[in-house]
């Protein structure tokens, strides 16, 4: 670890511009929004106006009678295509269109199909529905005990062994209860010199990809093609085939470039609906959501995190108890995975002997929550790094020194029992501190402008065990195609994977063609999520390229040439086949080893194939009269193994940090009785160019992932981890107040300062 393997000046490690950059900036890249099929109908969705209710009636007659309307479809109509039309990656809980009940405001209840999208939109206005309103629940902690029950019976998908105990469980909103027990936490608290206990909250936010969700289903002869802006084409194929009761090979899923995903476009989103509609009317059906409608699809979990630490007088954390409540909204989506996969890191990157973690996935009557860049980790780091800072302050120990004293070092067991390997936690922390000149005096401002600084560090395990497959196809002229189902949604995966092939085959990256995901053509991949592609698909691509290279060598050998022949590839083919003919197809498949955590203790000796480490340091300026916070400087440091393409890595780091900056400072889905009241970019604000910190620095820590392709591992999320707590810690440093709830708005800073002033007056 922490050594860069020497590599000849090759393709890996080169900051190659994105292969598709020219296509994109000249407007020639293909997106699903641009695809039109002959005879295509446009779908527009009629949505629920109540948060929880039994459907009494749906009146579609006026809409159906409108000129230009082809059909109006409700939930019961879907049963003609799929008798049990419920889908989802963890639970089969989400109906293609609402059946019997609606569970959140904005849920799809009916669909109008028309040749003209404006006619479809106008006809939707003519639909009305009557509901018997049911008691609803919106808060994740209340959902633990509320009388309102979102789903009468739990329906786990059955693909995950750790969900099996939930089959058939009734009258509960707890979709998953994950627990981890290590050592003796009660004893640690009984013998503690200090006990610190805090509660932190995060708000519900949204991915806001600038390309809203879009899917087009084209029915064929006993077959179906789905063009979709999806991060998981293989999953879509399998799930659509399961719903239809078809073999996989009759469903074809094609994915061009995506205009951003961030976890929004995972699993099934619009695909089940357009597939059923297309098969019902036997015509192509396209559904393009508006930006506003995206607020009713998938979001990031709001959370409540209660964290309590036992600390010894010399500043060692001896025990930690974590209770995390995840507000999953009306449908589980991948929430139970977030609850478990992120839940087991809730005690943080610290070496703590005694740990207890309870992590609960809750159903509520909000729009569903799933994966969003970080997969739950930013919510956890927000709490444990704010808590860490408060402990250091409480003990009067420097925040960096306290972290160093407790940090989880290489070779030590993590809370799960998995021994840390290739995890540059200490180095990331040191990088952040060095960049900020932590040990040197700091200008703290004066008058109404006060300055402060803060640090935070987080880590993430990779989702596992998951599979990636890849093919490398060398044509008779030596030109090379890479076939894989990793979706390039802007993160640069096409370029990075081509670099792996190029490095292995000793050719130019720019000469390789990467074939867009198409399940009839490109092999299986679990999904493009959780920063898994560089490691998982990267390994599969490396194996496929190795396989192709070995076959080239074998071809040379079979022709009686020496192994180090300087024969060009095209001449090898010509010599072998007598003309320009033939292919070499290299295949690679990769699945890492994994030990499933024990259900009772949550322990596992091999819980992840690799760790992602991200740290953040910030310097802020606070206006003490208004509460406005300016980020003067933002430092991101990450362990991502060896960077395949340093320039892309750097933009991943700054992009992730800026996205989290929005979630930290102002992004917030405002809800009134379950209704999102700011579902548009006019009222839901994301960071713009003027919100950028004065200085952004991105540090790639010198590291090497021994099991990764050319020493690399994932990076897409790492810079999200520390942003929120680093800013809250810096605000505390500047003006002496602690915020425990996101977003950190100027008003919340102002109010906290007012409250502090009043309480100090009373003292």
């Amino acid at each position, binding site marked *: 670890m922490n050594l860069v393997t020497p590599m000849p000046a090759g393709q890996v490690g080169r900051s190659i511009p994105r292969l598709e950059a020219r296509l994109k900036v000249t407007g020639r890249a293909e997106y699903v929004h641009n695809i039109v099929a002959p005879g295509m109908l446009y779908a527009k969705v009629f949505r629920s106006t109540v948060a929880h209710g039994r459907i009494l009636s749906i009146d579609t007659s006026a809409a159906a009678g409108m000129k230009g309307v082809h059909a109006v479809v409700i939930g019961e109509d879907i049963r003609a295509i799929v008798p049990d039309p419920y889908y989802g990656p963890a639970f089969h809980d989400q109906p293609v269109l609402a059946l019997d009940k609606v569970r959140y405001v904005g849920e799809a209840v009916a669909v109008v199909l028309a040749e003209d999208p404006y006619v479809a939109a106008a006809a939707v206005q003519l639909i009305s529905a009557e509901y018997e309103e049911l008691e609803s629940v919106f808060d994740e902690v209340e959902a633990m005990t509320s009388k309102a029950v979102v789903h009468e019976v739990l329906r786990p998908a059955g693909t995950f062994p750790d969900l099996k105990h939930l089959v058939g469980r009734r009258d509960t909103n707890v979709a998953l209860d994950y627990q981890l027990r290590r050592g003796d936490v009660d004893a640690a608290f009984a013998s503690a010199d200090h006990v610190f206990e805090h509660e932190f909250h995060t708000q519900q936010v949204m991915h806001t990809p600038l390309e809203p969700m879009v899917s087009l289903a084209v029915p064929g002869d006993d077959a179906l093609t789905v063009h979709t802006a999806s991060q998981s084409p293989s999953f879509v194929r399998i799930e659509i085939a399961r719903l239809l009761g078809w073999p996989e090979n009759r469903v074809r899923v094609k994915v061009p470039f995506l205009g951003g995903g961030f976890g929004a476009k995972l699993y099934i989103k619009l695909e089940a609906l357009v597939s059923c509609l297309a098969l019902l009317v036997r015509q192509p059906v396209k559904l393009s959501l508006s930006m506003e409608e995206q607020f009713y699809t998938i979001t990031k979990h709001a959370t409540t995190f209660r964290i309590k630490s036992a600390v010894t007088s010399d500043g060692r954390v001896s025990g930690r108890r974590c209770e995390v409540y995840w507000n999953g909204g009306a449908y589980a989506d991948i929430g139970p995975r977030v609850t478990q996969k992120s839940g087991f890191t809730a005690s943080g990157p610290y070496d703590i002997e005694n740990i207890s973690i309870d992590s609960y996935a809750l159903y509520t009557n909000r729009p569903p929550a799933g994966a969003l860049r970080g997969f739950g980790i930013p919510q956890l780091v927000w709490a444990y790094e704010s808590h860490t800072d408060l402990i250091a302050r409480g003990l009067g120990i420097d925040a960096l020194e306290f972290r160093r004293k407790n940090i989880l070092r290489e070779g030590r067991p993590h809370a799960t029992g998995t021994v840390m390997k290739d995890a540059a936690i200490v180095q990331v922390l040191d990088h952040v501190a060095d960049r900020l000149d932590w040990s040197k005096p700091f200008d703290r401002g004066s008058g109404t402008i006060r300055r402060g600084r803060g640090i935070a560090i987080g880590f993430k395990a990779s989702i596992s065990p998951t599979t990636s497959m890849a093919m490398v196809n060398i044509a008779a002229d030596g030109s090379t195609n890479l076939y894989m189902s990793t979706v390039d949604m802007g993160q640069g995966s096409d370029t990075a994977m081509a670099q792996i092939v190029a490095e292995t085959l000793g050719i130019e990256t720019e000469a390789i063609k990467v074939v867009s995901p198409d399940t009839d053509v490109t092999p299986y991949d679990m999904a493009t999520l959780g920063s898994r592609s560089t490691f998982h698909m990267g390994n599969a691509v490396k194996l496929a390229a190795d396989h192709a290279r070995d076959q080239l060598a074998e071809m040379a050998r079979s022709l009686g040439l020496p192994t180090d022949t300087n024969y060009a590839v095209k001449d090898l083919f010509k010599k072998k086949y007598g003309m320009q003919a033939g292919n070499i197809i290299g295949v690679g498949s990769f699945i890492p080893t994994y030990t499933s955590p024990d259900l009772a203790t949550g322990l596992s000796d091999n819980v992840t194939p690799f760790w992602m480490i991200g740290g953040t340091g910030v310097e802020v300026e606070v206006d003490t009269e*208004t509460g406005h916070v300016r980020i003067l400087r933002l430092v991101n440091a990450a362990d991502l193994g060896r960077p395949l393409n340093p320039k892309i890595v750097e933009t991943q780091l700054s992009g992730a940090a800026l996205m989290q900056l929005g979630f930290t*400072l102002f992004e917030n889905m405002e809800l009134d009785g379950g209704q999102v009241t700011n579902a548009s970019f006019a009222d839901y604000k994301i960071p713009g160019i003027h919100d950028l910190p004065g200085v952004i620095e991105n540090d790639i820590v010198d590291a090497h992932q021994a099991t990764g392709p050319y020493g690399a591992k994932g990076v897409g999320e790492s810079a999200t981890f520390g942003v929120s707590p680093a800013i809250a810690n810096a605000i505390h440093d500047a003006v002496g107040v602690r915020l425990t709830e996101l977003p950190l708005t100027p008003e919340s800073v102002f109010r906290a300062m007012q409250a502090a002033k009043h309480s100090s007056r009373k003292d």
Partner: protein
Amino acid sequence: MKGFELARPASLAEAIALLADGDPTVRAFSGGTALMLMMKTGVFQPTRLVHLGGIEEVHSAILATEDGGLKIGALASLRQVECSPVVADIAPVLVRAMKRLSNVRVRNVARIGGNLAHGDPHMDLPPVLSALGATVGVAGLDGARRIPVESLFSGYYETVLTPGELIVDATVPPQSGWSASYVKVTTRSADDWPALGVAVALRLADGVVAESRIVVSAATEKLTRLPAAEAAILGAEPTTDVFARAGEAAAAEAETIDDARGSAAYKTALLRVHVRRALDEARHTGAMQ
């Protein structure tokens, strides 16, 4: 979105005639930046839009008036105002306010008349023009009249304009001896609508405040001039302490409202601070010669 008719009158008189019957589904359309958003979300479904782009060119001119003031035709784009040397010379605060007003793409198409007639209390130009003492020229079936910008608004998204009346110009009186500033305060992203807008103009004589205009917007239901704040500094030396008194008076008299950008109490607190700061800035900007 349903279909609608797009009328293209060639003259102001023709446009007025097309709008005169008061049908709420018939609206004038200039830059369309606000109207198109309302149509997209279904808040407004027109039967007819009266496109003003084809009327006499004089209505988009920006001119210095004979007395040293400024006359901005209603169809001048915000970008034209931003780049106009005449505006920079006579009322530079308008140019400064443009820098954080939406973005250059919107400023290229949005027009002064629409910006004022829309009645949206979050707009930046109405408070600035009010502080400058501007009036709007209005034309209708019954003839022309002038209305001070500070009296143009009757409520949230409401103006005193009657059906068929169109704003034809905004006229700024001579600014000699005055200095002005505008503070836009956002509480979410920098490009958000303001939580508070404060525009002030000061005229000093013999070392004391001889006259001032202090205007709040965005935090209140409609643009509001604050006489108590103005009275608090009248005749006083232009010091930060004196300006703080204006801030206190403003906080006491303005009726701020709650919304997603902040509570009423917080906006009042912001107003208290930013009236003082805006006056300080105006003083430091220096009076127009």
